[in-house]
């Protein structure tokens, strides 16, 4: 389940980055895309991958 969630977050991140680029001259589009990226940062933080061993 977590893998699927992480994959979906990655897809959304790529999409939001594209949206941000498309909105380069449109502040409303650009800023809303940045806001989406903010929540994706939080989503990545709360679904961390556990490293196999310390270090």
């Amino acid at each position, binding site marked *: 389940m977590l893998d699927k969630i992480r994959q979906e977050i990655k897809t959304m991140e790529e999409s939001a980055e594209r949206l941000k680029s498309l909105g380069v001259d449109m502040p409303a589009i650009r800023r809303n895309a940045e806001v989406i990226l903010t929540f994706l940062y939080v989503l990545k933080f709360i679904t*961390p991958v556990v490293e196999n061993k310390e270090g």
Partner: protein
Amino acid sequence: MDYWNPYTETMPRDQLDRIEFSFFKNLFSYAQSHSALYKDKLKGLDVGDLKTFADIKKVPFTYKEELRKWQENVEPFPYGGLLGVKIEEVNTFRQTSGTTGRPVYVPETYESWQWRIESWCHILWMAGFRPRHRVFLPFGYNVYVAFWEAHYAAEKLGCEVIPGGALDTKGRVNKIIELKANALTGTPTYLLNIAQEAVSMGIDPKSLGIERALGAGEPLPEATRKRIEDTYGCLMFDHIGSTETCGFAGMCEAQQGLHIVEPFFLVEMLDRETLSKEVAVGEQGVIVITPLGRRSFPVIRFNTMDVAVKGPSTCSCGRTSLKLMEIVGRVDDIRKIRGVLFSPKTVEQLIRAEFPDIVEYELVVTRKDIMDEITLRIELSPKIAKDDADQLAKKLAERHKILTNLSCKVKVEPEGALPRYDLKAKRFKDLREVH
């Protein structure tokens, strides 16, 4: 059991440690390249030096005094060398209360704020706040952080938030009744003040319909927590945090200690003497915190100067995070009086647990010649007669002596003589230094 994020909240301990170590290294590298304070402070250390979890102890502590120093006359104004992002990215100003000196100014970006709010969502969810709750927030539009976090987190959970600013206490009681608010947050002191105001209006606080309340901004001794529960007929929960570190631990339905919100925070509990060894479960330790995902204001191994009893990583709620069993107080609140170590929290516990007719109090320490004196100023419920007040004062002095090993003078003050607090209460005044 119902969790906000079951993945992280029930994760095996060793996995949490690994994640936090990985986050710690990321933050270390980020701070070294983005914060003037840490460029300077971490000179000579490289992230490659952090090979095992134990290597975290190679990283020096950060103290509040340093934060102040790195903001004084250091650009960019007003955050100075603490800023971890471009100044244009900052979108909210917050500051510490200044209780212990010059306030520290804290920059939040949209990202850091949302990270912080996510952490707070854990705190509210653990305390049983749910979308069905209509949460009354009795605070003004101000620069302090605590209730803003509560506001945004309650909103994010799906609760209905009632902004309770720009009203006096009576107005707030009326608004709670008018809108049938069923949840409340506030400083413990102010929650008791609201209840007292309701009583003076002829309203039983139990009839307000408050189901749950969450304390913020002040320590919440168990006796005070129970008193608030009894007064409102509600469940009262605690949390701990600060402007510099964010809210980092909260109480679950088991109401036995505070769960660290992991892996948002790496919390170390270190021995008071050397600050080098992790204390054992059941022992007192100084809380040292690293918020692991906040880039606007990176803080690494912040020594909070708060002392708590370390709890286990097990709980009947099923969460696996480290627990703080009891907040003992601040290192700088624990004083030596006539050679005896004294914590003001003991007096609060005593008053809240055994003297329900004391509505407000203040503890003053002075020095006469070479002798320290403690005066306990109290204000009583108006229903107490003069003779009863004298008896109560005598009993209080006796109980104080038994619990603290120190005698004190109890002075009964007229109604309204002592200050009331909406935010952090300052009931302990050590005036010895100024005499």
